[in-house]
């Protein structure tokens, strides 16, 4: 599943610089708002669904080399976080939907590996 399809289907808003989302493949996903659980469980290259929006999510995603973070419930990261994400090459996507809905949609799209 490429990231562009995910963005279109879930009507996500990219918060970071535009990128060639079509060429980014996502097969795995993870969800948690506890950063240590993410550290322990999020697979390499996966998409992470969370309602956390502070700067440390970028550090976590960069260390784990995740494909993208979907920030749920319309939580808005501050500009410094978005800048940091651009620097680290981490894609931030926003949705007004809750995490439960978001993960459900990802599952329907076939992203069921974790």
């Amino acid at each position, binding site marked *: 599943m490429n990231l562009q399809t995910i963005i279109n289907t879930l009507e996500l808003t990219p918060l970071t610089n535009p*990128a060639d989302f079509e*060429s980014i*493949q996502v097969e795995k996903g993870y969800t948690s*708002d506890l950063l240590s659980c993410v550290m322990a469980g999020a697979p390499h290259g996966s998409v992470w669904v969370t309602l956390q929006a*502070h700067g440390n999510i970028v*550090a976590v995603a960069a260390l784990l080399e995740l494909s993208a973070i979907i920030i749920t419930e319309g939580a808005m990261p501050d500009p*410094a976080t978005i800048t940091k994400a651009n620097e680290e090459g981490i894609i931030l996507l926003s949705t007004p939907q809750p995490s439960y809905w978001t993960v459900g949609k990802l599952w329907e799209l076939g992203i069921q590996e974790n």
Partner: protein
Amino acid sequence: MDGAPRQNRVISDQEAENISRLEELAYEIRVEQVMTSNPYVFTTSQTMREATVTLRQMRISGAPVLHNGDLVGILSIEDVIRCLIEPDLDSPVTKYMTTKLITIRATDLLVDALKMFVNTKLGRLPVIDPNGKLVGIITKGDVTRGLLKALQQETQVEEMRRYRASRIFEDIESDRTSLILRYDIQAHDFTHGGSASSRIKRALIRLGASPQIARRAGIAIYEAEMNLIIHTTKGGVIRVEIEPHQISIDVYDYGPGIADVQKALQPGYSTASEEIRELGFGAGMGLVNIARCTDSMSLDSVVGKGTRLRIKIFLPQQEAMGEGPVPKETAQ
């Protein structure tokens, strides 16, 4: 490009990194850095016949038209075709040139040029200076070449860094050689949380560590770094000693100390405040993660004095760091 449909191709981490870097470069590089300066130009006194011959001889698909040094139009192959259909080759270029000019400034970013190419379907744009004078021309090809060149240069710089670092121990003779990295971590400095671990991870990769080793070290050090930020009163220090076959990480602080070390090591146990838990920290999994990612770990603490965490990661013989050729990157 091998012609395979893109969506069926699994792209590697390296490629993904390059793609996003390419996007970033479009926001960093300016038109003047990739445009063709002093392009071939026509003057209003020239005929279409002369222009046609020139375009063919110069193997270009269009050129700006100047009148007394001022940009007045652009003549492209499409205009020539219209003229050839007539045929009307003895007319001046002014009769067929496009005068509805879309220009771009030399100081604009490549991303602006890309947007213009997409929105206008034009193949080339005249580049002007702040006074509106023509200073160059930019084509889609110039943008692609400019971006690829910049990307290649960056890759070369990183390769050179890796090459140098990966041999750092090679020519040094001693009974035991090591490299020590030190990072001072401030208490409650959430803004910089994760920056020491990211830097250490990058350093390990440059020294020739495998992606798996670098990832394990990165996760363990991130947790230790966040512990210093969340729990200490005066911050602390991360000291990483890198030897060819092991990474020894020493994390110490000056208080407040852990009352019950055994409890602290239990999964799910945390003393983090409600406020910090709301940020997603304090899951009580930090030390558990550290233990999982490392080969040895010891935790000593004295209440009122401080805490000392010592962890080690051992590298297999064939994955030694700093002693020669970088191991082939294994895709995960």
